[in-house]
């Protein structure tokens, strides 16, 4: 293997080169290059890299601000007021002259200015058109979004309260208590949540209350299961054992040691509860057993729009787009958070 013997012919080696390396010239052998980050900082850094998640977060924030910020202008009173002469007007946005956004509607293959045909005074604009009672569709959609977000909030609330505490207690207590609590979850989750909703709707009258109650009963079981599994693991961790031997109270241990370590699961699972809650409300309202007139929601709007879809497609398209964007945003953000908090699944 003489081929490996390749002394650089130009290299001149002088005897001085063989002096021992002075100490200060020695390279630092144990330098750590990467700066250290806390778990949350690291997760946030990873989330920021995920374009889809960042855009989704932005969209969700905008929707929340618009939906809740609009409350002084769009409320129950404005919802009830109908104006039949403005009924079924297509979108008209000031200064925009694109068919479909300038008050014109395609009828029998021809674009007809509905505002002129119905003698609507000049200067009246509905940026997303109106529905069959002459309500501004834009206002209704914003209100509907608010309803969806409230439902999401409620579902999150029950996930965080019932789900998390049920899971922690079940996992922490173990033994008989755990067994009974798990059987209860098993039973609740073998009843289709749809059935629970329907029963709630029959007992209370259709509306926000029944939907919220139905969600309260059915939404938290998955969270509770995941929290329990994780608590079981955490329980045997050294630092929890240490806290127990030092005589810390269970509540203190739960708040100081368990919840912070469960936080990533809690956040991720919440992000999956939200879209399914939003879907549930829209679904119920769509089939006419959820929220009903004069209240409105995205599901109600879709149901109204669906009836006239052939002739006034915009009445369904706009709420549909908003609902889909809302769902996609929460799903993307959920995926982004999962990848950010759980580097194992990141790929």
């Amino acid at each position: 293997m003489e081929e490996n013997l390749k002394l650089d012919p130009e290299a001149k080696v002088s005897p001085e080169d063989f002096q021992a390396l002075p100490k200060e010239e020695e390279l630092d052998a144990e330098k750590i290059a990467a700066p250290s980050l806390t778990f949350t900082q690291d997760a946030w850094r990873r989330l920021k890299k995920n374009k889809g998640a960042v855009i989704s977060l932005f969209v969700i924030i905008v929707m929340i601000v618009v939906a809740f910020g609009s409350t002084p202008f769009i409320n129950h009173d404005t919802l009830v007021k109908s104006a039949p002469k403005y009924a079924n007007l297509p979108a008209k946005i000031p200064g925009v002259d694109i068919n479909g956004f300038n008050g014109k509607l395609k009828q029998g293959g021809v674009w007809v200015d509905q505002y002129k045909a119905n003698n609507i005074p000049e200067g009246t604009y509905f940026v997303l058109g109106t529905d069959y009672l002459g309500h501004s569709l834009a206002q209704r959609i914003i209100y509907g979004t608010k309803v969806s977000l409230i439902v999401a909030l409620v579902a999150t609330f029950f996930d965080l309260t019932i789900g998390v505490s049920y899971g922690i207690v079940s996992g922490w207590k173990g033994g008989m208590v755990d067994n009974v609590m798990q059987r209860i979850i098993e039973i609740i989750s073998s009843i289709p949540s749809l059935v629970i909703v329907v029963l709630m709707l029959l007992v209370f009258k259709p509306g926000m209350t029944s939907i919220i109650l139905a969600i309260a009963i059915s939404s938290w079981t998955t969270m509770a299961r995941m929290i329990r599994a994780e608590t079981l693991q955490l329980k045997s961790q050294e630092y929890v054992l240490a806290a127990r031997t030092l005589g810390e109270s269970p509540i203190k241990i739960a708040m100081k040691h368990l919840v912070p370590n469960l936080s990533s699961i809690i956040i991720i699972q919440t992000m999956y509860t939200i879209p399914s809650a939003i879907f549930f409300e829209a679904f119920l309202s769509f089939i006419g057993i959820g929220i009903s007139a004069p209240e409105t929601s995205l599901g109600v709007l879709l149901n109204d729009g669906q009836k006239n879809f052939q002739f006034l497609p915009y009445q369904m398209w706009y709420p549909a787009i908003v609902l889909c964007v809302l769902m996609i945003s929460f799903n993307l953000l959920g995926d982004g958070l999962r990848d950010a908090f759980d580097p194992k699944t990141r790929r």
Partner: protein
Amino acid sequence: MGERILDVKNLKINFHTYAGDVKAIRDVSFHLDKGETLAIVGESGSGKSVTTKSLMGLLANNAEVVGGSIMYRGEDLLKKTEKEMQEIRGKDIAMIFQDPMTSLDPTMKIGRQIAEPLMIHKNVDKKKAWAQALEILKLVGIANAEERINDYPHQFSGGQRQRIVIAIALVCYPEILIADEPTTALDVTIQAQILNLMKELQQKIETSIIFITHDLGVVAGMADRVAVMYAGQIIEYGTVDEIFYNPKHPYTWGLLNSMPTLSSTKLEAIPGTPPDLLDPPKGDPFAARNPYAMKIDAEKQPPFFKVSDTHYAATWLLHKDAPKITPPDEILRRQKIWQEMQAAAK
């Protein structure tokens, strides 16, 4: 030694990462003769696994061979297509992995897993393949093989699973067997059994073995020749006696010094960590951890210096101008044994 069956020359492999190119293998050359066992020794990250994966054409997607050649039967394996490599893998060159607990498909009967290479490479039908699988299963020492051939991996212990992995590797009687830390994940008592089995089968099947390990203790009884790797380069190679009793490179000294022996009272660790191969040092990569480092080590990479026909080491300490230094006590003790061995040979 027999004919030369594998010749790796000036192999260079980079990994593309988001931070830049990691130069994982930097100019590695070695060869393998028929029937011998070559041990490649080094700490994790030294590039020993990457080297062998390149022999199999199993490098990760972000790895790129930047230079060199791997000659096998007069052909360069690096120039072969994926399809051609598939025919060599498992048939001519086979591999055993580190962790037997995870290297078997949990949902497939082990008989099928052993028979699979036969069915694709030797074109034998299922019945014959299973018969041969049964034979090799007995050969690797699985008791009750007739029944156990229908079992799933979870029904076996770690040592048994490694025997099955060996059976899979040897079922086509490969010319070269690459064993990547085959005993690291096993209990010490099982380790010895597996090593004995490998030695025994090597003679029966007449295969050459490339044995990768970070554990010099395992090497002693196994290998004919040893190559020591550090930071993507081979820094010393020689026969097993030369490396154990007449080592020349300070890194090899460090490795031997950190290995427990009967006479050792204290184990010396090698201080520090290997260099970052994103930006390898321009001089001797071991300089920063080398207590005998000289000025030239920081500036120029040492070439290989010949110690004997079979023994080479890449350290400036072997240069004629280098000062005479005293190796650690443990090395002195070994060199004394070496001198006795030399004297006895005469």
